[in-house]
């Protein structure tokens, strides 16, 4: 095996290279096939399942669609789900962006430490991270105990099972997804640009908003996409920290598919989630392309 491989460049190297160039798309074949088999086919199955009226999947029709979209409650659920994603994106940007700026100015050794700290949460299971937040946010949790011992509050605050608590914990849980693309783009920025901007008399703020932010836009948009998609579908965090009074689409899908067994309705809810999240993502990436086109064009 290794002999043929080693010999290849000498004998048929040229033709091999030509072959590769001509048929480069074939390299994408394994992934493409996997994509069709594991993603497109199930999605079609989902669409097919949604086109049945009854939970036994025997009566074809649009009954499940009519049922789902005939209920104003479900509109609220879809809106709440998207809004949760927007809120999480906003907080991760507000906290993550300054952190990325700090990262740029750190010496390399400290940068490595920071990267490790950022990646650390990803090494823990989401279940563990979520339960840790119960310990922090709970009635007898760290925050309440601290505030009570400082005399700031007399009765424990209700943080768990509120949207505020959920957004706080999702911000921490999703933060790596914002920071990693952001940092990888920002660290490629030419440091001379900042000096040039300063030399031309721009204040630090002006440099930030007219040079750094526009140039980091691709990373920012990628981070927003990831955080949005991940937080709108974070079933465990949503249900464990948010409780079941805050109803988002993943909870609805879980109930319909695994508790009530109404798969057509679950399929409709799933497709609503896919479509609504994808349309926000499409809008975001359009924004991202526009801004980078603006930069280079």
């Amino acid at each position, binding site marked *: 095996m290794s002999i043929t491989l080693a010999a290849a460049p000498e004998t048929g190297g040229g033709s091999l290279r030509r072959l590769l160039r001509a048929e480069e798309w074939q390299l994408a074949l394994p992934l493409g096939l996997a994509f069709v088999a594991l993603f497109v086919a199930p999605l079609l199955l989902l669409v097919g399942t949604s086109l049945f009226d009854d*939970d036994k999947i025997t009566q074809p029709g649009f009954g499940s669609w009519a049922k789902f979209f005939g209920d104003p*409650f479900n509109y*609220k659920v879809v809106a709440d789900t998207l809004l949760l994603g927007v809120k999480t994106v906003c907080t991760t940007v507000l906290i993550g962006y300054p952190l990325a700026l700090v990262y740029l100015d750190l010496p*390399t050794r400290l*940068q*490595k430490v920071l*990267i*490790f700290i950022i*990646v650390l949460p990803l090494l823990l299971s989401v279940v563990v991270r979520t*339960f840790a937040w*119960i*310990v922090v946010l*709970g*009635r*007898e*949790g760290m925050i309440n105990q601290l505030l009570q011992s400082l005399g700031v509050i007399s009765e424990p605050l209700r943080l*768990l*099972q509120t*949207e505020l608590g959920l957004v706080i914990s999702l911000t921490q849980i999703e933060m790596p997804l914002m920071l990693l693309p952001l*940092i*990888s783009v920002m*660290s490629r920025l030419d440091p001379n640009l900042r000096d040039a901007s300063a030399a031309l008399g721009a204040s630090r703020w002006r440099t930030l908003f007219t040079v750094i932010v526009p140039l980091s836009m691709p990373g920012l948009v990628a981070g927003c996409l990831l955080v949005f998609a991940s937080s709108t579908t974070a079933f465990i965090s949503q*249900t*464990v920290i948010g*409780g*079941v*009074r*805050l*109803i988002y689409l993943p909870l*609805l899908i879980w*109930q319909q*598919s*695994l*508790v*009530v*067994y*109404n798969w057509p309705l679950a399929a409709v809810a799933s497709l609503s989630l896919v479509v609504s999240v994808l349309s926000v993502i499409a809008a975001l990436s359009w924004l991202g392309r526009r801004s980078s086109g603006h930069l280079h064009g």
Partner: protein
Amino acid sequence: MTMQSFNRRSLLAGASALGGASLMPRGAFAKGSLVATTYPGSWEEAYRAIVVPALKKKEDIDLELAPLFAMDQIGKAKASRGAPPFDVFILDPGPRIVGIEGGIFEKFDGKKLSNAAKLPAGFIDDSGICVGAQVVGIAYNPKKLPAPKGWKDLLVEPYVSRLGLTGFQTTFGTASLIELSKQFGGSLTNVDPAFVELKKVLPKIAAVGLPAAMPGLFQQGQCDVMYTNTQTVATLKGKGIDIEFVKPESGAVAFYTTMHIAKGTTETANAYKYLDLVVSKEMQEAMTKSPYNFIPVNKDVVLPPDLPMKSLDEMSKYVVQDWAQINPLRAAWIEKFNKEMAK
């Protein structure tokens, strides 16, 4: 400059190590393996501690436990269409009926069990075998609250502002909400009075969560009173948590727990060996002990004094609900719970 930690080589090495691990033969030296479901929490702990090693020792079978609530098991089995993700189910009465209707159980033959005669009459049928009973009532933290007397207490102070609520996803949740409804004029098939009363006090209720989250919320002091089964109370108590079980004045709810062999399994013989062991005197006796406190089905087991039920003959003193009537209504109840409880 920065992200050397993510170079291709180390990523590839990590990924292939992970991938390689999953290719390792599973239980290559054991005679057989079996995947059985169990309920998360006390059942899982008891079965892991007692039954798994015993089955390995006696029959050389590797038992893999999949912790899932009853309804989830049915959902997964239905989703897998003929290739069951597990070989043996553990179910409550409601999901059992759904399972029988859906034809997802292998026809059960009690004659294949050496311990069949040790069980009361009627505990083995065509669909499966009864392995225990569960008692559902109220659990509270005695350090923080006086003992509640009945279901109605849950909706008044001091209990309501410490109440942890769960919906109709589980048997214990459904059973409790039905009992609560009965206190306000409802019935087995009418839970509307419970919704009306819950809605009045909703802002005060400490937590509304998924069933699996409740023990954690209780442990963290997020709620100090909830409805649950005796095994959960026993397990939490075993972990040093302040918790006591109360039989409500109107009676605690009791129901049988049954096990079934999945249709299409290739491990039928091992499944029978497992079930035979589960109802054996040694296993049943070990599981009656603290902290598990299971109610045994084997007639030879001598009952310890601290069980909620002294023997299964006492089932008649408990509230037993007819799940054939409950099942058709549950989907609508779950939807209603979403809407009524939503913020």
